[in-house]
């Protein structure tokens, strides 16, 4: 770069994969000499990494783009992420946006911006396309780093726009993954989160998801491994056994989406409730405290009150540590858009309230079942009062007095009290030994 240090700000919406990709871009720009500033500060470049999974995400993405342009008049505004794929032409027509970069070229944004400041105007379509060409994330950002092993999805669930905006399923070669893991650990990370759009369908040469996990667990170092999100289809005993490895965290986010088999079929999901239950039981037979978290969609077309009740029953039955509920929203171009009997918003809202209540009860029960037990917490931050926060291996948010301890270290903490409810719930603990 030829002039004073340029300032760059980022804003990320949506999933963990998006967050990882932003983190990697931050590291990229940081290394290239840019000053990374908070989104609220004025910057020469603003990158908005958007999401389009629901109507609400579209709205949030649009608002964020407007906010970025309004607060940074005359600056370079780069819009990327799934909304950039879904509404590319519309966004390209907006004057407030300088560049619209599709997901597969997101990793080359530094080239684009560098070129811009050097007077070289590149059309984003000329950028190198590679969904895995990201920098190793710098440790200053978080204590956990995602490891991207896969992108895209071929499942074509009838409600989901992701196959359209993230593209076909593609798996990262295993040697690249292991190199990324080693570099990430060398940067000081203590927790790796295995990430992708549909990681259970990893397929590279003869390697499958279990092989990737096994290879990562074999890398030397002081770290633990978490899996971000999985589709609940067909896990074998070998997969369950992998969780007995001391580095594996006993937590899975298994996306149930509905407790009704009829609705699951219309969603074109690959499992039924009995299979989901089988997986839960398989794990909990071996690891009784195992934390299952999940996603549920409320108000899918033609969802009857009985279907909905089956989702509530599932929440009450499976002792989820957390349930992320979504009100179904139409995504243009999906099969569900053309289905009959769309549920009125009033009913969706009412069902959403009811299921949230059940979910909060479930979370409360799950967290309370840990009182008196000890967790290994990775410290994410310590405030001025010397209170540390972080997550235990079961993905339980823990706060505890941590004098003399440092961020990004493990601490053994006895859990004594649950505070708050729902998203704000956390467990207060005491340092052991």
């Amino acid at each position, binding site marked *: 770069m030829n002039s004073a240090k340029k300032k760059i700000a980022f804003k990320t919406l949506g999933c963990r994969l998006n967050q990882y990709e932003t983190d990697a871009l931050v590291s990229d720009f940081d290394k290239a000499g840019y000053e990374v500033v908070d989104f609220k500060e004025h910057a020469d470049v603003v990158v908005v990494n958007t999401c389009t999974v629901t109507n609400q995400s579209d709205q949030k993405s649009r608002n964020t783009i407007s906010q970025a342009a309004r607060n940074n008049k005359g600056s370079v505004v780069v819009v990327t992420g799934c909304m950039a794929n879904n509404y590319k032409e519309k966004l390209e027509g907006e004057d407030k946006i300088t560049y619209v970069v599709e997901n597969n070229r997101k990793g080359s944004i530094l080239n684009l911006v560098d070129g811009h400041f050097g007077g070289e105007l590149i059309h984003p379509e000329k950028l190198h396309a590679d969904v895995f060409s990201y920098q190793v994330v710098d440790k200053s950002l978080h204590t956990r780093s995602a490891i991207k092993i896969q992108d895209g999805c*071929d499942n074509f669930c009838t409600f989901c726009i992701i196959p359209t905006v993230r593209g076909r399923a593609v798996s990262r070669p295993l040697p690249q993954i292991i190199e990324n893991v080693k570099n990430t650990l060398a940067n000081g990370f203590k927790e790796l989160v295995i990430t992708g759009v549909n990681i259970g369908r990893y397929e590279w040469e003869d390697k499958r998801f279990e092989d990737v996990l096994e290879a990562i667990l074999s890398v030397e170092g002081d770290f633990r491994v978490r899996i971000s999100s999985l589709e609940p289809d*067909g896990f074998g005993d070998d997969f369950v056994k992998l969780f007995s490895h001391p580095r594996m965290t006993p937590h899975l986010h298994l996306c149930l989406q509905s407790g009704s*088999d*009829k609705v699951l*079929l219309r969603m074109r999901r*690959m*499992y039924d409730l*009995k*299979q989901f239950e089988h997986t839960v039981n398989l794990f909990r037979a071996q690891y009784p405290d195992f934390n299952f978290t999940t996603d549920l969609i409320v108000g899918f077309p033609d969802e009857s009150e009985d279907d909905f009740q089956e989702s509530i029953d599932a929440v009450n039955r499976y002792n989820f540590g957390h349930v992320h509920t979504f009100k179904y929203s139409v995504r243009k171009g999906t099969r569900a858009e*053309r289905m009959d009997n769309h549920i009125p918003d009033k009913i969706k809202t009412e069902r959403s309230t009811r299921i949230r209540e059940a979910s909060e009860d479930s979370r409360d029960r799950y967290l309370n079942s840990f009182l008196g037990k000890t967790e290994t917490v990775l410290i994410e931050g310590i405030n001025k009062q010397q209170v540390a926060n972080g997550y235990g291996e079961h993905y339980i948010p823990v706060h505890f007095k941590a004098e003399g301890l440092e961020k990004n270290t493990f601490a053994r903490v006895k859990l004594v009290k649950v505070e708050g409810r729902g998203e704000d719930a956390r467990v207060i603990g005491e340092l052991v030994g």
Partner: protein
Amino acid sequence: MTMDFKPDIKLDETFYKVKEVRRLTEETFSLRLPKSRFTYHAGQHISLGIQGDYQSREYSIYSGENDECLEVLVKEVEDGYFTPKLSKLKPGDLVEVNGPFGKFKIDEKKTADHKFVFVASGTGIAPFRSMVRTYPDLDYTLIHGVRYGKEAYDKDEYAPDRHILCTSGDKTGKVHGRLTKYLKSASFEKKTQFYLCGNSNMIFDALEILKDKGFDRDQIHCEVYF
């Protein structure tokens, strides 16, 4: 002139010229496209668009893996948006093909020692024709539920002792009534792989019947049509 294609080119989406619209009944037809370099597994589906139209729809592939044409089976929906347009296509018109997609496939390791039962309603027979044409030695039974016997698409291609036609609107089928009536009364070997394709109500009912008969959900593969 024969063109030599680079083997490493992977087709994901492309335009094809319609070769033939083959009429099977008044409402149902198969659309034949040149297969060219397009490769797929029997049972998979494609997304089909018409040049100049912004919409697309998914169709199971009706042809076998080694057939000369890529073929899909379409039933025209009265007052529908897409199928009447497909129905009016002429040879030479362009359609856009995306794919192939899906995991609704035959497990080749099981072909030698498993029985296969295909359960289809209406045009849900499409992936099964593809499977039967691809695996000529497959030990299969095809249970096809339709309203009238004339909807037994390409019936002559299946061995008569392997094809159970269930007709609910006339008595021309082997079984008069819905296919679920036949499923309830039938018995199957323990080591059977079931493949269900059709509308979600049929699949839901068939799943329940098979589970009641003691078959494991892992033995039952589903492809839902909407």
